[in-house]
């Protein structure tokens, strides 16, 4: 069982690195979707066999929302905006990968020292969660495109989700559902806002640095 868990975690780490090193928006969205689906499988790696029915429900909802709903929403948006690549990021793609490696090191250190309630099933679980959160933050800070910002937000949430799995016993079902609903509404609103902004102000082209013109 632990083998499966760790394979999943490595998969999540790899999707993170993929996002850090890529310039194509399509790759971002697909990697985010795969990460979301991978996450939902984490629920089935518990030691006690088949999980409770409400956990199964949660996993299925996660899978559908993160694997199907978000990607289709985001793909629709980039199709309508006609933007396919991340242009002129603040931090280049090679440098981003190096930063990702450094973040992985920091995440390992944090994972080793962070005091947590209960038993953690794998030494990699907490570092992976941390690494995913850092990746999301990094994507928001280092990229210009608005779609990447939304993805960064999603990736952060994926990290929080992984963390939730790590301390499964301490997080009630209701909280997990609440977070999922939150993120769903968040992405929905963001996509709609992006679409509207792009339609009203043609020259922005999903480039958030242009929004600085709105400063006081």
């Amino acid at each position, binding site marked *: 069982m632990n083998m499966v868990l760790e394979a999943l975690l490595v998969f999540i780490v790899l999707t993170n690195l993929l996002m850090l090193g890529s310039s194509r928006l399509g790759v971002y969205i697909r990697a985010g979707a795969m990460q979301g689906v991978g996450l939902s499988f984490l629920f089935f790696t518990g030691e006690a066999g088949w999980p409770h029915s409400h956990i199964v429900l949660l996993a299925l909802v996660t899978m559908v929302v993160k694997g199907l709903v978000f990607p289709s929403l985001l793909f629709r948006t980039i199709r309508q905006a006609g933007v396919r690549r991340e242009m002129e990021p*603040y931090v280049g793609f090679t440098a981003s990968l190096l930063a990702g490696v450094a973040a992985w090191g*920091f995440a390992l*250190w*944090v994972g080793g*020292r*962070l005091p947590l309630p209960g038993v953690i099933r794998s030494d990699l679980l907490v570092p992976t969660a941390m690494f995913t959160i850092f990746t999301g*933050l990094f994507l*928001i*800070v*280092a*990229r*210009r495109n608005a779609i990447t*910002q939304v993805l960064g937000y999603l990736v952060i949430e994926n990290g929080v989700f992984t963390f939730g799995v790590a301390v499964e016993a301490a997080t009630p079902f209701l909280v997990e559902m609440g977070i999922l609903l939150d993120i769903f509404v968040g992405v929905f609103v963001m996509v709609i806002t992006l679409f509207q902004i792009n339609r009203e102000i043609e020259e922005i082209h999903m480039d*958030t*640095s242009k*929004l*600085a*013109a*709105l*400063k006081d």
Partner: protein
Amino acid sequence: MTAASLILATVALPLLGGILGRLLGFHSWLARWTAGLAGAAGGLAGLALAGELLWQGGRAAFEWPWFDTGYTLALAVDPLSAFFLLPISLLSAVTAVYGASYLGASHGGGHSPAAGSPHGADPVNPANVGLFAGFLQAGMALVLLAQDGLGFLVAWEVMSLAAFFIIALDDAQAENRAAAWIYLVASHIGAAFLLFFFLYLGMRAGDFSFEALAGLALSDRARRALTLAAVIGFGAKAGFVPLHVWLPDAHPAAPSHISALMSGAMTKTGIYGLLRALTLVGLPGRPAAAALIGLGLVSGILGIVMANAQRDLKRLLAYSTVENLGIVALGLGVGLWGAATGQTVVAVLGLAGALVHVLNHALAKGLLFLAAGVLVQATGTRQLDRLGGLLKRMPGVAGSALTGAVAIAGLPPLNGFLGEFLIFLAAFTGLVSRHGESTVPLTLAIMGLALIGGLAAACFARVFGIAFLGEPRTAEAAEAAPPEAPMALAMALLAVGCVVALLGVAWSLPVLGRVVTTVLRLNPLEIELELLKAGVLLRAVIAGGGLLVVLAGFLAVVRHQLLAGREVGETPTWDCGYAAPTPRMSYTGSSFAQPLNDLFGAVRGGGEERPRLAGLFPATARFASRPGDACVERFYEPVFRRVETFFQSWRWVQSGRVQAYVLYIALTLLFLLGWNLW
């Protein structure tokens, strides 16, 4: 009625009246009078409470467990709070009635007197003023009644913020917004020191009740620091120089009856707080007492010098408040000096003088601000030089204003001189006792007080003379009509109050003994004896003043008799044999004040624009001068400009990029995470 229900009425009535008045905001008359009458009723309840406590002695308390939070709201009246409750309740009641009528005119008239200014674009809703006036009144009462540090601080904030909202109500004008802002900053700088004061004491005692705080044994250093914090914190509210800067801006911005309340009552809570703080940390030593004398002298002299230079009537009155609070500080300083050097007479009389001056200033300044409100409403301007000749147009107002002016200038036979007389008495007694070290501070106090008195007389001779005597200088002043009955009644009440205070203080000075005892903790009998002796002296002075009044009346009668049956011609004032005199030829307020302004030019601030005249036939030239405030120009403006420059240099932090903001958050979180796990 029991004392507890009186306490409840004092606090709750103005609050409920204000809220109810706001709910009735759709009907102006109903809203104004609901708030006004409730405020008046609350004020009367406070008066009854204060009177009972002062004359019967004892202590009334009211306790309310605060919604199961473990905190008990304890309100109580002891002689000290009862004494301050007296002027504050009286002024609250009178201004509430005045305000109900005053605010109504803002709908009928062309200009907006609610703002104290004729330029208001849209008039302030009277229901809003009533609401915050209710909060202000209740807040002031709570400040006096609170019996623990926590309750005191909350009440202090309620009072301060209510005043802020009233100042900010007429926010269409930039100067009112600036005034509200300055007031907010000043009062919160003060509040920060009070927070330190009470939190430090509360931390040491483990409890916030005044009883627990007073029982603490403090080191000398802690006591000095706490006394300093109290003087700064409460001094900001009382308007001691250099913390007075909010007063001259805030008073013109507020409606006149609120200016009266703020100037006459709210500043006094600063004095109350200072005295209360002294009961908690103990009386200070000689250096602190001498410093307080110095503070009082600086506030008094600078206050009246700058008042004399003002042309805006309400600004002038605000600076006069600074002066009078300076006199109060001076009295406190003399009293504390007496206590520190073991001279009971000096201690008792100095403190009593300060207290009496608190009462008298509340009455007289309240009256003058109400009169200023009438003038603003009738003529649409606060500029002294645009008034004139109002004595003939509104004799009732002129009579009240004259009473207030004489009282505030500290001239016998009205009440204003009583407090100053007691302070003089204290200082002279200390001087003749030949206590070596007392010579310098007490001599300075006497000289300063005399200077302040003379300047104040000159200042108010100018105010009354320019506003009421002579010929009207503008068409608006010529067409001024007397105010509505409630406003005239409110002013007459305060004028009568000045006379009643004169007699009341002189004949029942020993009542103050209970108040003085709470602060000084000396033998009550000894204190009462000193007050009895001083009372005899006061009555002698009053008798002398009364004799002068009788003499003046006698001369008037003689004049009337001599002129009877003869033809008495009347001619315009300032006629002086000119062919076609105009009011523009008469003395203006600025020209009247010029000699004194020149004399104190170095300390009063402001500036002049003097034309250079050259040649035999110089071209048309223009001279202009503006009053200023030396503290603002030489201290606050440079300091705040530097602060602004410093923060401007950090503007790049706000780049306008989402990425940068997220980066700040991320770095902060990562730093905290790393720091915690290290």
